[in-house]
């Protein structure tokens, strides 16, 4: 991608000497394949989008990446938003508060469609809503125009938080693991365990075999279905995290490519598209989390 404009060229030649030093370090740090380092070299020259978030600096052995920095910014913004909401909270709502309340009401009503139970919706609401807000803010921060052009040591200073698999994977793991914990709390440990390792189904066979001989066939199948459920839990993590990461990352690459072709006007519709994608992906992530919570908290029906 010939993303660099002509104005940029003198700058990059100026800085190239400086870059070389940095490159040496980073190449040593990333013990990765040759192709990978080549890609990195390429990326540093053109601020190209790499599949992984780039390291800005290290604190001990901890790599602070540009995505992490953006996430911190997102957290900061959310904290400010929360504090504003708390400060404006009053019995007679202001326009701002009405707006927030409308969102909360709408979200709860939407959740009722999935859970069919207001109490359950209210219980899960903080987690699901937080996921939605966190993902949404991260998605949108990645879209800020010119975000990639602010560089620090040759790498973009900010990169969408969710355009890093670490973020989406962490969220996906959290979503699925917490859904399982929620299921154990609501349904009970033994029952929940039988969802996956269906010992109950096997134990039932001798008792019911006279009444219903097909149980010899059905219950072992149920047992294996339970085992498959275990795999599906891992699939859930993968699908959640890769879907979010893929969409957001693809969006950023798309906008970067379009901007490289024609920087004025043309990327605009794609920006709108990505804004919508940002909402939709946040919505999908949170609703799927809600679905997992709901499935986990309903008893297995035979």
């Amino acid at each position, binding site marked *: 991608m010939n993303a660099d404009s002509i104005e940029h060229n003198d700058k990059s030649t100026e800085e190239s000497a400086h870059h070389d030093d940095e490159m040496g370090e980073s190449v040593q740090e990333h013990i*990765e394949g040759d192709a*990978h380092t080549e890609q990195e070299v390429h990326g540093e020259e053109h601020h190209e989008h*790499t*599949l*992984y*978030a780039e390291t800005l600096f290290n604190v001990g*052995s*901890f*790599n602070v*990446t540009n995505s*992490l920095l953006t*996430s*911190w910014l*997102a*957290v900061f913004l*959310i*904290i400010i*938003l*929360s*504090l504003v*909401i*708390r400060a404006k*909270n*009053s*019995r007679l*709502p202001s326009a701002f*508060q009405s707006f*927030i*309340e409308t969102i*909360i*009401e709408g979200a709860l009503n939407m959740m009722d469609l999935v859970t069919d139970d207001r109490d359950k919706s*209210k219980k899960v*609401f*903080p*987690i699901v*809503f*937080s*996921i939605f*807000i*966190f993902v949404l803010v991260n998605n949108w921060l990645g879209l800020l125009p010119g975000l990639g052009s602010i560089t620090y040591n040759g790498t973009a200073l900010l990169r969408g*938080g969710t355009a*890093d*698999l*670490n*973020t989406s*994977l*962490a*969220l996906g*793991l*959290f979503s699925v693991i917490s859904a399982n914990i929620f299921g154990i709390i609501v349904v009970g440990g033994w029952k929940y365990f039988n969802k996956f390792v269906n010992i109950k189904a096997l134990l039932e066979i001798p008792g019911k075999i006279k009444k219903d001989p097909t149980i010899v066939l059905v219950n072992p199948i149920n047992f294996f279905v339970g085992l498959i459920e275990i795999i599906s839990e891992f699939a859930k993590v993968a699908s959640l995290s890769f879907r979010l*990461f893929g969409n957001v990352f693809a969006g950023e690459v798309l906008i970067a490519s379009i901007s490289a072709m024609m920087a004025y006007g043309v990327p605009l519709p794609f920006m709108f598209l990505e804004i919508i994608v940002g909402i939709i992906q946040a919505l999908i992530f949170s609703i799927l989390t809600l679905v997992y919570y709901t499935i986990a908290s309903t008893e297995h029906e035979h």
Partner: protein
Amino acid sequence: MEILELFGVDWKLMLAQLINFAVVIFVLWRFAIKPLMQTMEKRNDEIEQGLSDAKAAADRLDEVEAEIKAKLQENKTEAIAILDKAKKQSEESRHANLEKTKQEVETVIRKAKEQIANEKDSMVTEVKKEVADMVVVALRKILSEDIAKDIDKKYIEKVLSEQK
């Protein structure tokens, strides 16, 4: 796990993002969602309370209105009764007064008549007496003086009383 390396997965970064998310959950829940939902719930309760209060008030108003109407009706009939009674009473008293006045007038008239009659009687007797005296004096003058004084007088009186 080469694929994870390709995507730059780093458990430390994941942990950092998890912490970020935990902060988000805590802050959103503690400072935004919880107080806001409490406010909303409270307001819903208040609105419900207000609506039920308003309904109770409206019911009570209807009740009171009905009561007032009933009372007004009662008062009206009572007032009419009182008015009727008063009319009757006044009529009666007027009648009685009239009667009394009539009687009084009658007695006054009677008394006056009596008095007039009495006075007439006494006047007649006095006039008689005076006329008799005058006649006597006149006769005396006419019939020269002192001829059977007593007889004449007695005679005149007799004549006068016969005339009467």
